[in-house]
């Protein structure tokens, strides 16, 4: 085998794997805290990427309006929930979060969008928009279902995916888009050429993993999130709002999704429905990580990325088949190592 090709494929695999790792981490996070298996993670990726690409052309993406519409729905739900005891403070707080915030983001987007807007501003706007969507998505779709089974949450998650993917088509059309690179720098080591883009992918992935580790290990809020994941009732009994934990988890997940999207859209053309497949591969990494372990998920993601790169070279027709059946041996191993005793809780 040609070493150069191998190195090249490996590099490609690691770059993709890093993205899958980010998405896998977000999936693990959301699942642990809310028990939601976040199928629409892929839509966060496309929304982030394509909003950024549209902003780069100087236009305002439809997602900014979507954020406002979802905020309005969230506000309506808040009002409905509080109908028995309408307190001004509570309503004002809800108004600020659900209406004023997305309206401000929309206004900001209209104010700043233009052909000569700096890349950093476009990135910030895309992230703001998608983060707001993630936050409201939790409020609208999942908070009312928080007490139901994982299965019901999973199906609701699929519903969100369908709706958001459809909206993606409305906003961005069926044509694929590419965004401008974050930096044009490049570095050559031996036969390998590292673009600024791929370096940014590595850097941000590592930064995110470190940041998550710091957040969960050392901050009160991070510990509160972990506590919610370990024992929901216990968390409520010390006064941790599970809705707050859920919002934070969704906020982080949507941010991570959007960043992943922005990182890859300069490398490959993204379509409104590409996110689903990308999300699913992060998903495979998350499953391999057992939906609990962050480091294992990150390692698994790198493996998924590499397998994908190699199989697209040697058996490009069966690339997806190979990637998705990769999970079977892992599941077999997991089931062999499965503990004999079931948990006493249901």
């Amino acid at each position, binding site marked *: 085998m040609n070493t150069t090709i191998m190195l090249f494929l490996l590099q490609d695999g690691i770059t993709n794997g890093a993205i899958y790792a980010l998405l896998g981490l977000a999936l693990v996070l959301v699942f642990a805290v809310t028990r939601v298996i976040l199928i629409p993670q892929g839509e966060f990726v496309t929304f982030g990427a394509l909003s950024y690409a549209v902003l780069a052309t100087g236009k305002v993406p439809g997602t900014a309006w979507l954020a406002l519409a979802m905020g309005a729905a969230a506000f309506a739900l808040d009002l409905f929930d509080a109908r*028995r*005891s309408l307190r001004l403070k509570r309503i004002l707080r809800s108004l600020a979060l659900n209406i004023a915030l997305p309206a401000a983001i929309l206004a900001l987007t209209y104010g700043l969008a233009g052909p000569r807007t700096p890349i950093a501003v476009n990135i910030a706007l895309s992230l703001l928009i998608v983060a707001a969507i993630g936050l409201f998505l939790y409020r609208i779709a999942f908070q009312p279902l928080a007490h139901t089974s994982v299965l019901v949450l999973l199906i609701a998650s699929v519903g969100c995916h369908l709706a958001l993917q459809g909206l993606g088509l409305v906003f961005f059309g069926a044509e694929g888009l590419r965004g401008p690179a974050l930096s044009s720098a490049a570095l050559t080591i031996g036969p390998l050429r590292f673009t600024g883009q791929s370096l940014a992918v590595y850097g941000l992935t590592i930064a995110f993993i470190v940041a998550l580790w710091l957040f969960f290990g050392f901050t*009160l809020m991070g*510990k*509160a999130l*972990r*506590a919610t994941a*370990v*024992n929901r*009732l*216990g*968390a*409520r*009994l*010390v*006064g*941790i*709002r599970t809705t707050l934990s859920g919002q934070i988890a969704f906020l982080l997940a949507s941010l991570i999704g959007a960043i992943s999207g922005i990182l890859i859209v300069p490398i490959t053309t993204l379509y409104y429905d590409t996110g689903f497949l990308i999300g699913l591969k992060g998903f495979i990494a998350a499953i391999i990580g057992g939906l609990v372990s962050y480091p294992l998920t990150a390692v698994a993601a790198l493996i998924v990325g590499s397998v994908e790169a190699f199989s697209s070279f040697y058996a490009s027709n069966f690339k997806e088949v190979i990637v998705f059946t990769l999970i079977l041996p892992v599941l077999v191993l997991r089931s062999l190592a499965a503990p004999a005793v079931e948990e006493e809780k249901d």
Partner: protein
Amino acid sequence: MSALLSVSDAHVSYGKVEAVRSVSLDVADNEIVTIIGANGAGKTTLLNAIMGVLPLKGTTAFAGMDMAALDIEDRVAAGLSLVPEHRELFGTMNVEDNLLLGAFRIPKATAAQSFERVYALFPRLKERRKQLAGTLSGGEQQMLAMGRALMGAPKLLMLDEPSLGLAPIIVADIFRTIGELRAAGVSVLLIEQNAQAALKIADRAYVMELGEFILSGSASDIASNQRVAASYLGFQHEGASEI
């Protein structure tokens, strides 16, 4: 005297089954009140409903506030705390983090004092502060659950079967600590199957059967009541059994 906690005409249902029927109770400042009764009488249900874990029909007031519109987290912030039957600890986190999260709703500066107070009450927890909660013994887990609840500096601590599954010898320790809480200005609402031990430390008691209170009064009166002695205490006294 205005009560710290006052519940009147409370009903709690699971679907069609009414587990608690028309129950009224109050707890004053610096008071230890116990509810005794067989397992399944509705004691745990009642406590969970007061905490907001289950929906309650009727009125509950705490520290002069109507609690109907408050959810669990608001009640915690108001100074109500529950140590549930299954303890609900954060098993994969260490003792210190469990306690830290107990102080989630109070300012950071106060939390430092809470740590001192809890470690003074339960020196064992200080020794084990880096150990994972899930690896503690049953007695230590109960201490941690109580410690975590006390971290939030509650006005009223509700304890659900603190002696459950513990060696009788550790139970004595736990009850001694409950007695000490009064001195620290914490009121206690205690649910126990071990009626004998509960009546020893309580000021007042309610007896619950099939979802209703059938008796109430000072702990000493209840302890000397014929019916209570026959159904709840008789069996606990060894040698007193008639079968």
